[in-house]
Protein backbone atom coordinates (compact mmCIF):
# COMPACT_ATOMS: atom_id res chain seq x y z
CA UNK A 1 0.00 0.00 0.00
CA UNK A 2 1.41 3.39 -0.91
CA UNK A 3 1.72 5.94 1.86
CA UNK A 4 -1.25 8.31 1.86
CA UNK A 5 0.66 11.54 1.17
CA UNK A 6 -1.96 13.60 -0.56
CA UNK A 7 -0.08 16.63 -1.87
CA UNK A 8 -3.21 18.23 -3.22
CA UNK A 9 -4.88 15.07 -4.56
CA UNK A 10 -8.62 14.95 -4.09
CA UNK A 11 -9.64 11.84 -2.16
CA UNK A 12 -12.21 9.30 -3.38
CA UNK A 13 -13.64 6.39 -1.41
CA UNK A 14 -15.12 3.61 -3.53
CA UNK A 15 -17.07 1.08 -1.49
CA UNK A 16 -17.07 -2.52 -2.66
CA UNK A 17 -14.08 -1.79 -4.85
CA UNK A 18 -12.10 -5.01 -4.99
CA UNK A 19 -13.85 -6.19 -8.17
CA UNK A 20 -16.49 -5.46 -10.78
CA UNK A 21 -17.91 -1.96 -11.11
CA UNK A 22 -16.25 -0.80 -7.89
CA UNK A 23 -12.79 -1.81 -9.12
CA UNK A 24 -13.45 -0.13 -12.47
CA UNK A 25 -14.44 3.05 -10.61
CA UNK A 26 -11.31 2.88 -8.45
CA UNK A 27 -9.20 2.62 -11.60
CA UNK A 28 -10.95 5.52 -13.33
CA UNK A 29 -10.56 7.79 -10.29
CA UNK A 30 -6.91 6.83 -9.87
CA UNK A 31 -6.30 7.56 -13.55
CA UNK A 32 -7.93 10.96 -13.03
CA UNK A 33 -5.45 11.75 -10.23
CA UNK A 34 -7.50 10.98 -7.14
CA UNK A 35 -6.10 9.38 -4.03
CA UNK A 36 -8.26 6.27 -3.85
CA UNK A 37 -9.50 4.38 -0.83
CA UNK A 38 -10.26 0.74 -1.62
CA UNK A 39 -12.97 -0.75 0.55
CA UNK A 40 -14.68 -4.09 0.84
CA UNK A 41 -15.20 -7.14 2.99
CA UNK A 42 -12.33 -9.18 1.53
CA UNK A 43 -9.46 -10.04 3.82
CA UNK A 44 -7.12 -7.19 4.66
CA UNK A 45 -4.18 -8.59 2.67
CA UNK A 46 -6.21 -8.93 -0.52
CA UNK A 47 -7.48 -5.37 -0.27
CA UNK A 48 -4.05 -4.01 0.52
CA UNK A 49 -2.70 -5.79 -2.56
CA UNK A 50 -5.47 -4.23 -4.67
CA UNK A 51 -4.64 -0.79 -3.32
CA UNK A 52 -0.93 -1.29 -3.99
CA UNK A 53 -1.68 -2.43 -7.54
CA UNK A 54 -3.63 0.76 -8.16
CA UNK A 55 -0.97 2.98 -6.62
CA UNK A 56 1.78 1.42 -8.70
CA UNK A 57 -0.12 1.66 -11.97
CA UNK A 58 -1.33 5.24 -11.63
CA UNK A 59 1.15 6.77 -9.19
CA UNK A 60 -1.47 8.02 -6.76
CA UNK A 61 -1.76 7.54 -3.00
CA UNK A 62 -4.00 4.62 -2.06
CA UNK A 63 -5.36 3.16 1.11
CA UNK A 64 -7.35 0.00 1.91
CA UNK A 65 -9.98 0.00 4.63
CA UNK A 66 -12.01 -3.10 5.40
CA UNK A 67 -15.61 -2.34 6.41
CA UNK A 68 -18.92 -4.09 5.86
CA UNK A 69 -21.37 -1.50 4.56
CA UNK A 70 -24.20 -3.27 6.34
CA UNK A 71 -22.57 -2.77 9.74
CA UNK A 72 -23.02 0.77 11.11
CA UNK A 73 -20.13 0.47 13.58
CA UNK A 74 -17.71 -0.72 10.88
CA UNK A 75 -18.72 2.17 8.61
CA UNK A 76 -18.20 4.65 11.47
CA UNK A 77 -14.74 3.15 12.11
CA UNK A 78 -13.96 3.47 8.40
CA UNK A 79 -14.57 7.23 8.52
CA UNK A 80 -12.59 7.64 11.73
CA UNK A 81 -9.71 5.98 9.88
CA UNK A 82 -10.12 8.27 6.86
CA UNK A 83 -10.23 11.30 9.14
CA UNK A 84 -7.11 10.24 11.04
CA UNK A 85 -5.06 9.21 8.01
CA UNK A 86 -6.19 11.55 5.24
CA UNK A 87 -8.18 14.29 7.01
CA UNK A 88 -10.54 14.77 4.08
CA UNK A 89 -12.89 13.17 1.58
CA UNK A 90 -13.93 14.69 -1.74
CA UNK A 91 -15.84 11.87 -3.45
CA UNK A 92 -17.81 8.90 -2.20
CA UNK A 93 -18.83 6.20 -4.66
CA UNK A 94 -21.46 4.20 -2.81
CA UNK A 95 -21.08 0.96 -4.72
CA UNK A 96 -21.06 -1.90 -2.20
CA UNK A 97 -24.01 -4.16 -2.76
CA UNK A 98 -25.33 -7.70 -2.59
CA UNK A 99 -27.73 -9.58 -4.85
CA UNK A 100 -31.03 -10.99 -3.62
CA UNK A 101 -32.73 -13.01 -6.33
CA UNK A 102 -35.96 -14.92 -5.92
CA UNK A 103 -39.64 -14.89 -6.72
CA UNK A 104 -41.71 -12.93 -4.22
CA UNK A 105 -43.03 -16.04 -2.51
CA UNK A 106 -39.57 -17.57 -2.18
CA UNK A 107 -37.41 -14.85 -0.68
CA UNK A 108 -36.32 -15.81 2.84
CA UNK A 109 -36.36 -13.01 5.41
CA UNK A 110 -32.62 -13.14 6.01
CA UNK A 111 -31.93 -12.53 2.29
CA UNK A 112 -34.25 -9.51 2.22
CA UNK A 113 -32.75 -8.14 5.45
CA UNK A 114 -29.20 -8.52 4.15
CA UNK A 115 -30.07 -6.73 0.87
CA UNK A 116 -31.68 -3.88 2.78
CA UNK A 117 -28.82 -3.74 5.29
CA UNK A 118 -26.02 -3.55 2.72
CA UNK A 119 -27.65 -1.86 -0.26
CA UNK A 120 -30.01 0.60 1.43
CA UNK A 121 -28.83 1.13 5.02
CA UNK A 122 -25.18 0.74 4.04
CA UNK A 123 -25.48 3.47 1.43
CA UNK A 124 -27.13 5.67 4.02
CA UNK A 125 -24.43 5.10 6.66
CA UNK A 126 -21.68 5.92 4.18
CA UNK A 127 -23.45 9.01 2.89
CA UNK A 128 -24.11 10.19 6.45
CA UNK A 129 -20.45 10.11 7.49
CA UNK A 130 -19.03 11.15 4.12
CA UNK A 131 -21.17 14.28 4.03
CA UNK A 132 -19.78 15.38 7.37
CA UNK A 133 -16.19 14.98 6.23
CA UNK A 134 -16.93 16.75 2.95
CA UNK A 135 -18.71 19.60 4.69
CA UNK A 136 -15.51 20.46 6.56
CA UNK A 137 -13.65 21.25 3.36
CA UNK A 138 -16.21 23.14 1.33
CA UNK A 139 -18.17 20.29 -0.24
CA UNK A 140 -17.84 17.19 -2.35
CA UNK A 141 -19.68 14.70 -4.52
CA UNK A 142 -21.49 11.47 -3.78
CA UNK A 143 -22.44 9.00 -6.48
CA UNK A 144 -24.74 6.18 -5.41
CA UNK A 145 -25.03 2.97 -7.40
CA UNK A 146 -28.63 1.95 -7.78
CA UNK A 147 -29.85 -0.34 -10.58
CA UNK A 148 -32.25 -0.36 -13.47
CA UNK A 149 -34.19 -2.80 -11.28
CA UNK A 150 -34.55 -0.15 -8.59
CA UNK A 151 -36.01 2.26 -11.12
CA UNK A 152 -38.01 -0.03 -13.43
CA UNK A 153 -38.45 -3.24 -11.43
CA UNK A 154 -37.87 -6.79 -12.69
CA UNK A 155 -39.59 -10.12 -12.08
CA UNK A 156 -37.67 -12.31 -9.64
CA UNK A 157 -35.81 -9.36 -8.21
CA UNK A 158 -38.25 -7.67 -5.83
CA UNK A 159 -35.98 -7.78 -2.78
CA UNK A 160 -33.00 -6.45 -4.71
CA UNK A 161 -35.17 -3.88 -6.51
CA UNK A 162 -36.65 -2.67 -3.21
CA UNK A 163 -33.18 -2.18 -1.74
CA UNK A 164 -32.00 -0.34 -4.86
CA UNK A 165 -35.16 1.80 -5.06
CA UNK A 166 -34.35 3.00 -1.54
CA UNK A 167 -31.10 4.38 -2.94
CA UNK A 168 -33.06 6.50 -5.42
CA UNK A 169 -35.05 8.08 -2.57
CA UNK A 170 -31.87 8.61 -0.59
CA UNK A 171 -30.20 10.29 -3.56
CA UNK A 172 -33.06 12.67 -4.27
CA UNK A 173 -33.49 13.70 -0.62
CA UNK A 174 -29.79 13.99 0.16
CA UNK A 175 -29.24 16.16 -2.93
CA UNK A 176 -31.79 18.64 -1.61
CA UNK A 177 -30.54 18.58 1.97
CA UNK A 178 -26.81 18.70 1.23
CA UNK A 179 -26.88 21.12 -1.71
CA UNK A 180 -26.45 24.16 0.55
CA UNK A 181 -23.17 22.63 1.79
CA UNK A 182 -21.98 22.26 -1.81
CA UNK A 183 -22.28 18.49 -1.62
CA UNK A 184 -23.77 17.04 -4.80
CA UNK A 185 -25.54 13.70 -4.72
CA UNK A 186 -26.37 11.71 -7.84
CA UNK A 187 -27.04 8.10 -8.72
CA UNK A 188 -26.14 5.79 -11.56
CA UNK A 189 -28.56 3.03 -12.53
CA UNK A 190 -26.68 0.34 -14.47
CA UNK A 191 -28.57 -2.11 -16.66
CA UNK A 192 -27.09 -5.46 -17.70
CA UNK A 193 -23.37 -5.13 -17.06
CA UNK A 194 -20.72 -7.82 -17.64
CA UNK A 195 -19.55 -8.56 -14.10
CA UNK A 196 -19.23 -11.53 -11.76
CA UNK A 197 -22.75 -10.78 -10.59
CA UNK A 198 -24.07 -12.18 -13.88
CA UNK A 199 -22.18 -15.43 -13.47
CA UNK A 200 -25.12 -17.01 -11.68
CA UNK A 201 -27.37 -16.54 -14.72
CA UNK A 202 -27.70 -19.16 -17.44
CA UNK A 203 -26.37 -18.08 -20.88
CA UNK A 204 -29.87 -18.46 -22.32
CA UNK A 205 -31.24 -16.00 -19.75
CA UNK A 206 -28.47 -13.51 -20.49
CA UNK A 207 -29.16 -13.84 -24.21
CA UNK A 208 -32.88 -13.33 -23.67
CA UNK A 209 -32.21 -10.14 -21.71
CA UNK A 210 -29.60 -8.93 -24.20
CA UNK A 211 -32.30 -8.91 -26.87
CA UNK A 212 -34.19 -6.33 -24.79
CA UNK A 213 -31.27 -3.88 -24.94
CA UNK A 214 -31.62 -1.36 -27.79
CA UNK A 215 -27.84 -1.09 -28.14
CA UNK A 216 -27.74 -4.88 -28.56
CA UNK A 217 -25.01 -5.71 -26.05
CA UNK A 218 -24.24 -5.83 -22.37
CA UNK A 219 -22.47 -2.87 -20.82
CA UNK A 220 -19.01 -2.99 -19.29
CA UNK A 221 -17.97 -2.07 -15.77
CA UNK A 222 -15.72 0.61 -17.22
CA UNK A 223 -18.63 2.24 -19.02
CA UNK A 224 -20.38 2.57 -15.67
CA UNK A 225 -17.20 3.87 -14.04
CA UNK A 226 -16.79 6.58 -16.68
CA UNK A 227 -20.31 7.79 -15.91
CA UNK A 228 -19.63 7.76 -12.19
CA UNK A 229 -16.50 9.88 -12.70
CA UNK A 230 -18.45 12.25 -14.93
CA UNK A 231 -21.12 12.78 -12.26
CA UNK A 232 -18.51 13.19 -9.54
CA UNK A 233 -16.95 16.03 -11.50
CA UNK A 234 -20.03 17.70 -13.02
CA UNK A 235 -20.27 20.89 -10.98
CA UNK A 236 -23.92 21.78 -11.62
CA UNK A 237 -25.57 18.35 -11.59
CA UNK A 238 -27.22 17.06 -8.43
CA UNK A 239 -30.27 14.97 -7.59
CA UNK A 240 -30.14 12.97 -10.83
CA UNK A 241 -30.48 9.26 -11.49
CA UNK A 242 -28.66 8.44 -14.71
CA UNK A 243 -29.26 5.14 -16.49
CA UNK A 244 -26.24 3.34 -17.96
CA UNK A 245 -28.24 0.62 -19.62
CA UNK A 246 -27.90 0.74 -23.40
CA UNK A 247 -31.41 2.14 -23.65
CA UNK A 248 -33.04 -0.66 -21.65
CA UNK A 249 -34.74 1.74 -19.23
CA UNK A 250 -35.84 4.24 -21.82
Amino acid sequence: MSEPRLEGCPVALVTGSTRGIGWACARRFAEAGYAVIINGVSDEAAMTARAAELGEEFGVPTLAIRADAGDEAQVAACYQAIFKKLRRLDVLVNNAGVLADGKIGMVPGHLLQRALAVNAAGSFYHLQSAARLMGRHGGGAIVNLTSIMGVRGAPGASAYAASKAAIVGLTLSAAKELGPQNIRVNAVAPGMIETDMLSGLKPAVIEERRRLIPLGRLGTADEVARTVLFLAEAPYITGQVLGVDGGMGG
Partner: protein
Amino acid sequence: MSALDDLKSCFVETFDLSDTDPAMLAYHGIPAWDSVGHMQLIAAIETRFDIMIETQDILDMSDFRQAVAIVRKYGVDV
Protein backbone atom coordinates in the same frame (compact mmCIF):
# COMPACT_ATOMS: atom_id res chain seq x y z
CA MET B 1 -8.14 30.57 25.77
CA SER B 2 -9.06 27.30 27.54
CA ALA B 3 -10.75 24.38 25.78
CA LEU B 4 -13.89 25.18 27.74
CA ASP B 5 -13.85 28.73 26.38
CA ASP B 6 -13.29 27.30 22.90
CA LEU B 7 -16.34 25.09 23.30
CA LYS B 8 -18.41 28.00 24.54
CA SER B 9 -17.32 30.09 21.60
CA CYS B 10 -18.56 27.35 19.25
CA PHE B 11 -22.03 27.80 20.75
CA VAL B 12 -21.81 31.59 20.77
CA GLU B 13 -20.67 31.83 17.15
CA THR B 14 -22.98 29.14 15.78
CA PHE B 15 -26.10 30.47 17.44
CA ASP B 16 -25.09 34.14 17.35
CA LEU B 17 -25.52 34.50 21.10
CA SER B 18 -24.99 37.86 22.72
CA ASP B 19 -26.05 37.68 26.35
CA THR B 20 -27.08 34.04 26.75
CA ASP B 21 -24.75 31.75 28.68
CA PRO B 22 -24.14 28.64 26.52
CA ALA B 23 -24.10 26.55 29.70
CA MET B 24 -27.82 27.26 30.09
CA LEU B 25 -28.73 26.12 26.58
CA ALA B 26 -30.47 22.95 25.49
CA TYR B 27 -31.47 21.55 22.11
CA HIS B 28 -34.59 23.34 20.85
CA GLY B 29 -34.27 25.76 23.78
CA ILE B 30 -33.71 28.63 21.35
CA PRO B 31 -34.94 28.93 17.76
CA ALA B 32 -31.41 28.78 16.34
CA TRP B 33 -30.69 25.40 17.94
CA ASP B 34 -32.88 23.35 15.63
CA SER B 35 -31.73 20.35 13.59
CA VAL B 36 -29.93 22.55 11.05
CA GLY B 37 -28.28 24.58 13.82
CA HIS B 38 -27.31 21.34 15.56
CA MET B 39 -25.34 20.11 12.55
CA GLN B 40 -23.69 23.53 12.24
CA LEU B 41 -22.72 23.32 15.91
CA ILE B 42 -21.26 19.84 15.40
CA ALA B 43 -19.25 21.09 12.42
CA ALA B 44 -17.96 24.02 14.46
CA ILE B 45 -16.91 21.78 17.35
CA GLU B 46 -15.28 19.24 15.03
CA THR B 47 -13.31 21.94 13.26
CA ARG B 48 -12.32 23.72 16.46
CA PHE B 49 -11.02 20.57 18.15
CA ASP B 50 -10.01 18.63 15.02
CA ILE B 51 -12.12 15.62 15.88
CA MET B 52 -14.81 13.58 14.14
CA ILE B 53 -17.85 12.97 16.30
CA GLU B 54 -19.82 9.75 15.80
CA THR B 55 -23.52 9.69 15.00
CA GLN B 56 -24.73 8.52 18.42
CA ASP B 57 -22.78 11.29 20.12
CA ILE B 58 -24.31 13.81 17.73
CA LEU B 59 -27.74 12.60 18.77
CA ASP B 60 -26.81 12.65 22.45
CA MET B 61 -25.46 16.21 22.47
CA SER B 62 -28.62 17.76 23.83
CA ASP B 63 -27.14 20.49 26.03
CA PHE B 64 -23.87 22.16 26.91
CA ARG B 65 -23.08 19.72 29.73
CA GLN B 66 -23.43 16.81 27.31
CA ALA B 67 -21.24 18.64 24.83
CA VAL B 68 -18.47 18.89 27.42
CA ALA B 69 -18.72 15.18 28.21
CA ILE B 70 -18.75 14.16 24.55
CA VAL B 71 -15.82 16.34 23.56
CA ARG B 72 -13.83 14.79 26.44
CA LYS B 73 -14.47 11.35 24.94
CA TYR B 74 -12.47 12.44 21.90
CA GLY B 75 -9.44 13.36 23.98
CA VAL B 76 -10.06 17.08 24.41
CA ASP B 77 -9.04 18.28 27.86
CA VAL B 78 -12.06 20.45 28.58
